[in-house]
C-alpha cells in the first residue's frame, strides 16, 4: 500500500493494453481517475464495467479503448452514450470489440474472479440471444441435479480503480451507500487503486460495512470530488443536470472533442477540471 498522487498512480498501475475496471454503480464512479488515464494518453485498454456511463463514453471517444466488457451501456434516464454508439456503429475513433453480458452474468463473473474460480455460474441468459452472439456465455451441467446452468468466465482485471468516501492512514478503505459490484471487482483484480474523498486517522466503526483492508489496496490517492458528476454519498449529490447536458455535448464529435480539450486535457489535474466547470456555471 502506498499513497501516491493521481498522476503517479495511473502512471504506475494503468499500462497500455491493460485490462482495467473502473467500477461504481451510478454512485462513486471514479471520474478523476478516468480523466487522468485520458490525459496520459493510454491506448488499447480492455475496459470492464457493468454500466459504462459517461466516464467510459469519454475514454472510448478519446481512443483509449480496444475492447469493452459491459452489461448496460447507456446514459441512465437520459438515453444513449453517443461516443460508445459511434465506436460500435461507425468504428470512430477506432473499432471497439465488445464482450456483452447481462448484469447478473457480469456480477457472476466478478464473484468468480474475486474467489479465483475459473467461471461464474447462474440461471441466466435463458432464451436470450446474448448467449448466441457472445462465445464467452456457455453452460455446464450440474453434477448433483443434472440441471443445465449458464456460465461466464471469471473477470480478473489487471487493475480495478474505485472511488471511496474514506481511507485511513494505513490505507484501509471504506465505502458505503450504493456499492454495486465494487467489492467483487476490487478483490478480483491483480491491483486495486483507490481515490478517496478524505484520508482520516480512523475509519468509522466498520462492522458489516464494506472495507478493503490495507493489504488488498495497491495505492490510495487523496482526491476530493473525484466522483463528480457521479456522487459520493455524504459529500455531494449526483449532478443529474450534468448527465442530461452530456447528451448534447457528446452527440457531435467536434463538440465532444472541444469539451474534452477544454475541461480535461487543458486541466493539469482534477482540481483544475472542477474549477474549469465552475467557471462556466
Amino acid at each position, binding site marked *: 500500500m502506498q499513497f501516491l498522487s493521481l498522476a503517479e498512480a495511473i502512471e504506475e498501475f494503468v499500462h497500455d493494453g491493460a485490462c482495467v475496471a473502473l467500477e461504481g454503480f451510478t454512485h462513486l464512479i471514479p471520474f478523476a481517475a478516468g480523466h487522468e488515464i485520458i490525459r496520459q494518453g493510454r491506448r488499447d485498454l480492455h475496459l470492464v464495467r457493468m*454500466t459504462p456511463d459517461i466516464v467510459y463514453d469519454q475514454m472510448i471517444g478519446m481512443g483509449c479503448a480496444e475492447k469493452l466488457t459491459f452489461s448496460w451501456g447507456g446514459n441512465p434516464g*437520459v438515453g444513449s452514450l453517443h461516443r460508445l*454508439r459511434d465506436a460500435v456503429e461507425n468504428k470512430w475513433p477506432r473499432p471497439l470489440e465488445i464482450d456483452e453480458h447481462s448484469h*447478473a452474468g457480469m456480477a457472476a463473473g466478478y*464473484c468468480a474472479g474475486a474467489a479465483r474460480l475459473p467461471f461464474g455460474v*447462474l*440461471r*441466466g441468459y435463458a*432464451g436470450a440471444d446474448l448467449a448466441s452472439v457472445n462465445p464467452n456465455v456457455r453452460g455446464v451441467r450440474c453434477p448433483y441435479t443434472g440441471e443445465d446452468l449458464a456460465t461466464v468466465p471469471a473477470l480478473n482485471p489487471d487493475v480495478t480503480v474505485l472511488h471511496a468516501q474514506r481511507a485511513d492512514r494505513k490505507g484501509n478503505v471504506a465505502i458505503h451507500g450504493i456499492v454495486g459490484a465494487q467489492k467483487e471487482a476490487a478483490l478480483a483484480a491483480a491491483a486495486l487503486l483507490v481515490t478517496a474523498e478524505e484520508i482520516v486517522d480512523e475509519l468509522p466503526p466498520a462492522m458489516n460495512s464494506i472495507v478493503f483492508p490495507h493489504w488488498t489496496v495497491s495505492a490510495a490517492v487523496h482526491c476530493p470530488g473525484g466522483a463528480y458528476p457521479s456522487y459520493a454519498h455524504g459529500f455531494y449529490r449526483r449532478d443529474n443536470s450534468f448527465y442530461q447536458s452530456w447528451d448534447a455535448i457528446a452527440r457531435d464529435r467536434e463538440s465532444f472533442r472541444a469539451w474534452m480539450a477544454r475541461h480535461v486535457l487543458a486541466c493539469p489535474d482534477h482540481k483544475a477540471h472542477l474549477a474549469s466547470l465552475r467557471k462556466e456555471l
Partner: protein
Amino acid sequence: MSGWTRDEMMTVAAARRLWDGCVCFVGIGLPSAACNLARLTHAPEIVLIYESGTIGTRPSTLPLSIGDGELAETALCVVPLPEVFSYYLQAGRVDVGFLGAAQIDRFGNLNSTVIGPYDEPRTRLPGAGGAPEIAAHAKQTFAIMRASPRTFVPQIDFRTTAGFLEGGDARAKTGMRGGGPRAVITDFGILTPAAPSNELTLSALFPGASVEEARAAIGWELAIGAAVETLAAPTAHELSVLRALNARTHAAHRRAVELPA
C-alpha cells in the same frame, strides 16, 4: 381537474396492476413512474427493488438513474449488486418485474440491444442490463411501452429478453422458473397473453381509444380478445398524485448541484 393525457393514463393503468404488498423489481423510466404512483396511491406497502441494490425504497421524486442517492437514503436496506440478483431475484423473491424496451413481438419477447444486425447495428441500444434475468425469475412481468408499428414488430431484431419465445409452451420447456409476461401496458390500452398460444391479445382499451386505433399501432395483425374491457379514466386523486410526483421530479433533476470544493 379536467382532462388527462394518454401518457398519464398509461402510467395509471400500469400502477393499478400492482397490488399492496407486492415485491416489484423496477426498471427506470415509465416502470419507475408507475411503481411509485402505485406506492403513493393504493399500494403503500409495495416493496420496490431497484437493481442498484436498494430494497424497499420510498423516494419522494423519481430517480433519473437507478442509483440516485435518494433511493439509498429511503430504502429499508441497500445490498451489493451480486446479492440483489442472486439472493433476491434468482432465489424467487420477486413477484413482479417491470420492464421497458425498444421493440416487442407478439409473444412478449423484448429487444433493448440493437436495431439491425448485432455485428453491424444501425442503432446500438444500451443493452440487457438486468432484464434477461428479471424476465426469467420474477413470478410475472409487466412491460410498459408506447405503441407504434416500429416498436410492436412482427420480428424483433435481437431477443434481449425472453417472453414466451415462439409461443405456446416454448417458454415452459426451457425450465425458466418465472411465469413470464402477464400484461403489456401501452398508450391505447392493455395486451395480455391468451392461452394456449400465449400471443399478446387486446384485452382492454383506454376511454376514447378504439380497436381500429389499436390495430393501426401494432406492427402485426393484432388479436382482439372476446371481451375488450374499457378501463376507468384516471381519478382526480391518481392524476393529482402523478402530476405532483412529476413536478417534484422535474424540479429535482434540474436543480444545480454545488460542485465539490
